[in-house]
């Protein structure tokens, strides 16, 4: 009997250095990511935060003293008003649309179409959206002209499209779809059995909404409204495309303070305004996350 020269099973040669521990620490592979995010996300944020507290004389709160001026207060109040109005209207109509979708066939093509459309429209905004409304109800817009031919004038009391009221209308266009996206999962969590249970206990439609569905959906609805508020509060492009001059809302004020064409640009003051905005948005988003977690508790 001869000795078998070849091994019975052919194995791949041990790779060079394969079995050894890497000489470099393992986190080194994640270092490029942290470095990149550090430079292009954390550094700009740090510049805004530190810039807000520095003026020509060094460390100071002088930049925030500018907040006390009438036009600054007005811009922030207008922003709050615009965001709250568009969030509440958007949340109500978005919830109605979500309910209309949720009561249909859950696997139907129509539902798929509506939720896809909402996914697209929630991202719609900026210059294109502003132009869409100018083409619709601007001075030479489709609806404006059509109404004029029928003896009606939507601008009898002045053109309001380029003012706060106009912005509310335009913002609602992206607020409703966003509300549908965040509210639909909550509606899907509602079981028809709960309604049957209410009825077998003698409750009517009113009791069902008041004592069963209402309290269950309230956190999701409120959370959605808060998300919509943050969404509108930080929006800039749509307003910038629609409103050509003036700083009627906070985001336009920040932009104009940053790049003033008349030489009044002041990065420190712009940073202070930006810091106030980011703090407001952050508070709203934290509240939203808390409400979202509360919703998730019974949704699963």
């Amino acid at each position: 009997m001869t000795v078998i020269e070849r091994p019975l099973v052919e194995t791949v040669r041990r790779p060079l250095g394969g079995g050894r521990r890497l000489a470099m620490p393992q986190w080194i592979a994640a270092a490029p990511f942290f470095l990149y995010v550090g430079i292009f996300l954390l550094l700009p944020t740090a510049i805004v935060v530190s810039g807000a507290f520095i003026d020509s004389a060094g460390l100071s709160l002088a930049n925030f003293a500018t907040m006390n001026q009438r036009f600054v207060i007005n811009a922030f109040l207008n922003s709050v008003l615009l965001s709250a109005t568009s969030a509440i209207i958007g949340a109500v109509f978005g919830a109605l649309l979500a309910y209309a979708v949720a009561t249909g066939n859950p696997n139907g093509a129509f539902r798929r179409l509506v939720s896809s459309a909402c996914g697209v429209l929630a991202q719609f905004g900026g210059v294109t959206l502003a132009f869409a409304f100018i083409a619709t109800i601007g001075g030479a817009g489709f609806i404006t002209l059509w109404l004029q031919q029928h003896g009606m004038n939507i601008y009898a009391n002045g053109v309001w499209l380029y003012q706060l009221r106009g912005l509310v209308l335009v913002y609602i266009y992206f607020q409703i779809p966003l509300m549908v996206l965040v509210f639909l999962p909550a509606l899907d969590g509602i079981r028809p059995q709960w309604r049957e249970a209410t009825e077998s206990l003698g409750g009517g439609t009113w009791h069902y909404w008041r004592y069963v569905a209402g309290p269950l959906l309230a956190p999701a609805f409120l959370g959605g409204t808060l998300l919509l508020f943050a969404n509108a509060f930080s929006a800039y492009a749509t307003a910038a495309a629609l409103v050509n001059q003036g700083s009627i809302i906070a985001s336009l004020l920040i932009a104009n303070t940053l790049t003033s064409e008349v030489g009044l640009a002041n990065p420190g003051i712009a940073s202070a305004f930006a810091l106030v905005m980011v703090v407001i948005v952050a508070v709203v988003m934290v509240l939203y996350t808390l409400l979202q977690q509360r919703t998730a508790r019974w949704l699963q």
Partner: protein
Amino acid sequence: MSRNRRLKLQIFRLAVFVLLGAFFLIPIGAMFEFSTRGVTEDAPRTLNAWLTIAQTPDLVAAILASLGLAVLTSLGMLVLLVPTMIWVRLRLPHLSRVIEFLCLLPLTIPAIVLVAGLAPIYLWMNLNISDSILTLAFVYLVLVLPYAYRALYTGLAAIDVKTLAEAARSLGASWITVMMRVIVPNMPVAILNACLLSVAVVLGEFTIANLLNYVNLQVAIALAGRANATVSIAVAVASLLFAFILLVILSFFGRPRARVAPDAPGLPYPGAAGGGMR
């Protein structure tokens, strides 16, 4: 459900769909209508505005710049995010919360705030590296992080990364081979989704380009609007159609799988605060 209530519900649904459908469709239809108007009020419908796009050098340059930015941003996103996410999943699971937090952070920082901090950085870059519009890809990569992260996260969650990697490693594959030839080919839909979302975000971006004085597609549309409303609306419709097509492709590929593998709880919805698109 009683017949009466079912009827009421159907009437309610119909009313909601018709009213909101009109609200959403009329502005888009009006843009088409506006972009095909003739010069005078009685002039016949014309496609002149659409044909003028190609003959306007500023617009063509801006369109090319935005397409270049979309490609660069998508590539950069893949190079930066894919290896990091795979590596963190395999070897550094304790860092996954940090990565997630950093990737979603751009949602809570409005683009208008980010730009205030970016201005000095870009001033330095313009002086020392390059003042090309393509440098915007650096910050656009940050803007697309939340969307790309979620898309890739869903893709990675759907496959057994650990087993695949261990199997490949035990057969002698290097880490590069594990990533490029084993894990990446197993998540084509997630990678496609991440790229499409990145392209959509980049093509829609206005805030940062405008305030850093670069003319990308959206800024060019806004500028053109002051000279010739019809042409700029035609470009706006074209860019909108393009984004629509991208996102419709996306919704047909991506969504069903996303339902199977739900996202980690507590993730804010993409498109919330940041993005720079509005």
